[in-house]
């Protein structure tokens, strides 16, 4: 079970607003977060990961990540995060990107095989295509066997064919590892293909009527 109740003041493109989000999630749920740009979707993911500070509480599978007295550092939160721009370590090969997270060669190999990029293991990541980079980033996000998988518009810079392929990969991974996944997306068809729940975010709040169970 994941219980979150977070509050944060934002000064974005739409001026000042308060991000105020409360929700409870069952373990293994796939949530797609939708809403207009600047509504606070990415900030919500970043706050859960500990990349940005916020008031409130966050309890993940019984472990307190944040409350009045506790603030678990980023490094100790078991989160896999997929950035829109891949954010791969450019000084490393594909395999090194995974092993940097955790020195577990058999698991890295398994993940690369799942992503169908095992043949690229020794390639420097700067030589890969966008779709390949995103699959490396996804594999890297899974190396710590995260409790929470946070995906920030992972398909936004990919072509439709690659989007479809990666949608299937993410679905397969979510089922295989049983992670709880939160994904920001603007695409209704992706939401339908992946989500157990869809959250509609408006001006920093999850609309009460916007939680839709598909």
């Amino acid at each position, binding site marked *: 079970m994941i219980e979150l109740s977070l509050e944060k003041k934002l000064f974005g493109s739409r001026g000042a607003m308060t991000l105020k989000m409360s929700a409870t999630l069952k373990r293994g749920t796939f949530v797609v977060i939708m809403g207009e740009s600047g509504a606070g979707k990415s900030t919500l993911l970043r706050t859960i990961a500990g990349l940005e500070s916020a008031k409130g509480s966050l309890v993940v599978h019984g472990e307190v990540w944040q409350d009045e007295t506790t603030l678990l550092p980023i*490094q100790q939160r078991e989160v896999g995060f997929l950035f829109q721009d891949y954010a791969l370590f450019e000084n490393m090969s594909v395999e090194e990107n995974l092993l940097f997270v955790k020195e577990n060669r058999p698991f890295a190999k398994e993940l690369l095989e799942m992503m169908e990029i095992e043949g690229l293991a020794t390639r420097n990541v700067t030589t890969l295509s966008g779709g390949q980079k995103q699959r490396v980033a996804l594999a890297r996000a899974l190396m710590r066997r995260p409790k929470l998988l946070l995906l920030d518009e992972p398909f936004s810079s990919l072509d439709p064919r690659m989007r479809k392929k990666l949608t299937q990969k993410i679905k397969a991974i979510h089922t295989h590892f049983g992670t709880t996944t939160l994904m920001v997306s603007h695409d209704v068809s992706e939401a339908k293909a992946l989500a157990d729940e869809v959250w509609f975010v408006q001006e920093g709040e999850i609309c009460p009527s916007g939680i839709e169970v598909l």
Partner: protein
Amino acid sequence: MIDLQPFVVSFKLAGLTTAILFFVALPFAWWLSQTESRSKPLLEALTALPIVLPPSVLGFYLLVTLSPQSAFGGWLSETFGVELVFTFWGVLVASCFYSFPFMVQPLQNGFESLNRHMIEASYLAGKSRLETLWYVALPNITPSLLTALMITFAHTVGEFGVVLMVGGSIPGETKVASVAIYEMVEMMDYTQAHIYAGLMLGMSFMVLFGVYFFNHRQKQKVRKH
């Protein structure tokens, strides 16, 4: 016969200054690049001071501070029996202050140009700030790192005012190549001055050419990818 001793002193000074500043400036530049502290502009201004300050001014203040008559110099002398003025080690201390911005600024610029998400990805991978600096940030700013090292080295080799103020011109101890050239000109020994100046010119050019050539190659590599 050319007396190479001033060059040896210059290169010893430049090598040690570069090595010390690398370890001192690296965490500082990293911190400056990551912090949102309100003290950042103040620290940046203080760091950049040696660039705009006349070397004689910096040298004068360092001379006063390190002199055994000052509180700090007196404390050093009484506690450790160390006197820095007119010694190689004093010149080294002065040199570290003088060349500090030349190490900090390229490193800071390099760190600030990195993709912020790449740094965050390292934290999310469970890595500490120090591990992130060493394994992710530093290897990804190789051109900036090379620029910082080479410019600091070359700049220290060319030091004149600060060295003269703090170290004087003691052969084999504080007499560096630039001071030797100054003395040769004073003695109207233009032949030796030409040789020394020519060597300095050649070496400085080679260092700068090396930096620009390497950075050019790196950019070409990135473009190819």
